């Protein structure tokens, strides 16, 4: 009896010793020197591993930050200016302050205003459905509504609105990592500056058809009438292929274009209500306005 106890103790002890020796040798032999700065920078980064910076993860980004001399082009969209500043202080390098960005959906074609003319049967994937055909509606540029952007979002900043069939971006949670932009096969998500109090004006349409065809497919499409172009005091609006685009840097948020747009394709967000109310389709869905209310209160 005591023999078997002794035997097992000896066996386990020797096994443990051998393992320890092997581990020791391996750790010495294969030791890789790592700059302690990398760990420190990594600690400062938000550890979201979203790849919004272009590197495959926070650790890789930390390595890049330490290795590169001029880090003014590098930016962590999740951490923002604060994190970048503290990293710059730690490394003794210079960073540029960047305007915080937010994802914006450039399509307002809800089920109501952009009726479906065909029915797609296949996988619930925007990319596959875009590969097979142009979409269930007559607009070949707009949102397909399968929600691949929502799946791509790591920050729970997006959800699908069942009523409109469009994704909704919760601006407070959006870190501008760009995952949704990459996931969208129709390229209808754009990163735009967040501005003060999240005030934004943009054309929520990508339709490059002539006015009549665009309007027929979707009643809130940009028809390229160039009314906004004429009214814009700061020359922020350009029209290409019957589609208006507002340059966010030049835009002074005067809201003149919103008023003149005949199809309500230009959307303003988070502005206090004007005395003369402008009816926009964008505020039609209840969930949408709820989100906006929340952000307004926060502001």
């Amino acid at each position, binding site marked *: 009896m005591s023999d078997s106890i002794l035997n097992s103790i000896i066996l386990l002890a020797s096994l443990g010793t051998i393992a320890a020796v092997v581990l020791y040798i391996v750790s010495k032999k294969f030791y890789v020197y790592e700059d302690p700065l990398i760990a420190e920078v990594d600690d400062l980064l938000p550890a979201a591993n979203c790849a919004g910076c272009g590197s495959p993860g926070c650790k890789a980004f930390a390595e890049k930050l330490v290795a590169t001399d001029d880090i003014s082009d590098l930016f962590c969209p999740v951490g923002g200016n604060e994190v970048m500043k503290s990293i710059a202080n730690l490394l003794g390098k210079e960073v540029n302050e960047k305007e915080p960005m937010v994802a914006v959906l450039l399509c307002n074609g809800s089920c109501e205003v952009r009726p479906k003319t065909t029915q797609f049967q296949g996988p619930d994937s925007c990319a596959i459905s875009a590969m097979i055909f142009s979409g269930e509606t007559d607009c*070949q540029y707009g949102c397909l509504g399968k929600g691949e952007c929502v799946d791509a979002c790591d920050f729970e900043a997006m959800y699908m609105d069942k009523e409109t069939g469009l994704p909704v971006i919760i601006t407070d949670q959006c870190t501008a990592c760009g995952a949704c932009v990459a996931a969208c096969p129709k390229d209808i998500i754009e990163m735009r500056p967040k501005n003060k109090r999240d005030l934004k004006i943009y054309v929520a349409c990508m339709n490059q058809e002539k006015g009549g065809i665009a309007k027929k497919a979707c009643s809130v499409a940009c028809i390229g009438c160039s009314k906004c172009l004429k009214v814009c005091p700061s020359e922020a609006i350009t029209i290409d292929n019957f589609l208006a685009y507002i340059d966010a840097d030049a835009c002074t948020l005067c809201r003149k274009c919103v008023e003149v747009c005949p199809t309500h394709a230009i959307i303003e967000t988070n502005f206090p209500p004007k005395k003369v109310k402008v009816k926009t389709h964008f505020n039609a869905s209840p969930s949408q306005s709820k989100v906006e209310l929340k952000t307004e209160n926060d502001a």
Partner: protein
Amino acid sequence: MLKTFPKGGIHPEENKLTSTKEIKKLPTPKIVYVPISQHIGIPSEIIVAKKEKVQIGQVIAKSAGFVSSNIHAPVAGTVTKLDKIIDSSGYKKQCIVIKTDEKDPSNYEDIVYPLKTEIILSPKEILQRITDSGIVGLGGATFPSHVKLNVNKDKKIDHLLINGVECEPYLTADHRLMLERAKEIVIGVKILLHALHIEKAIIGIENNKKNAIQNFKKLTKNDKGIQVASLAVKYPQGGEKQLVRAVLKREVPKNRLPLDVGVIVHNVGTIYAIYQAVQHNKPLIERVVTVTGKKLEDPSNYWVKIGTPIQNLLDEVGGIPENTSKILNGGPMMGKAVKDTHAPVTKATSGIVLIADDEASRGKAINCIRCGECVYVCPMGLEPHLLMNLTEKHLWERAKSEDIMTCIECGSCSYVCPSHRPLLDYILFGKKLSKN
């Protein structure tokens, strides 16, 4: 035992409703929409301007490279627009819109050329004629024919294979052509044998077209070089690699062409077009299209000008019947579901198939039960279930090493899957992304 390819394949319902219907001429459309990209390769270059008058058969878009093709005016008339028009893919593509000149008699006359058996042109001239006439593979792949025929000298070709298989259900365009223009096709084969300096040609036809087989056997009795092979009915026998395997027992190596085993394959429709081009200098401006569907009163085969809106064909057979939920450009196995019936007929359109709602709707996809049926039917020896899985997980490198690129997109896997899984949808996507 009839010849066939050994691995995989399926037997879908044939539904060849129009195999006894003679090919009729579709009335010339008032407007034609000619896409500039009707072939595999570089889109052609437009060489006409808006408001320009064009003659029938005039080149309106020039070949823009080696793997490209000329496009000719299918009607005489005026170019009204150079615009983007919705095509069968549902996207808008660059088209040349021509308004038919209703006073020009060349648009309406139905010339039946007398059979011209003598081959006068030299091989070089023949190839040039084929290049100029904008002939592409009419079986559906639309690969420019002159590229196929431009054989490098170090390749040794010994067989010309004529693809008269038409394994797609419903379609009978090739079948009718083989019955009605058999003599021309035989001369077309001789033209190609002459141009390629080879002696042996085999016409492969599936055994469900017995009259076509007999017809050719009778016509080629005295030609030692031309044989007729009757093949067992199995989809996808019309696939180039499957056909070469079935007829000649030669297996085309992975990522190679039939050329590498000494074979050149051409569709019967292409051969007829080559005959027309070489003997009568007539470019490819019309083709045979089967318009069919179970609910149609009078499904039929038509000679259709390239660029005719699909709607014209549907009007000709009496409009879209009730409960039609899918209009296909091509056959039910590989065709495209069309979103807008104003999409034009192209060189690739071998049929317009209408599918009623009881057949059109896909079953709800459920979990894979790993029955292995997709593996069993895949003619390329792939594992579709695995490829779908890898594509879903975006593992492109793995998918590539599992030979996703060799998939011929025949759709046999999706056809048999008892769980109704969209295998081919994912594989197509995987192929697209694995390329990069």
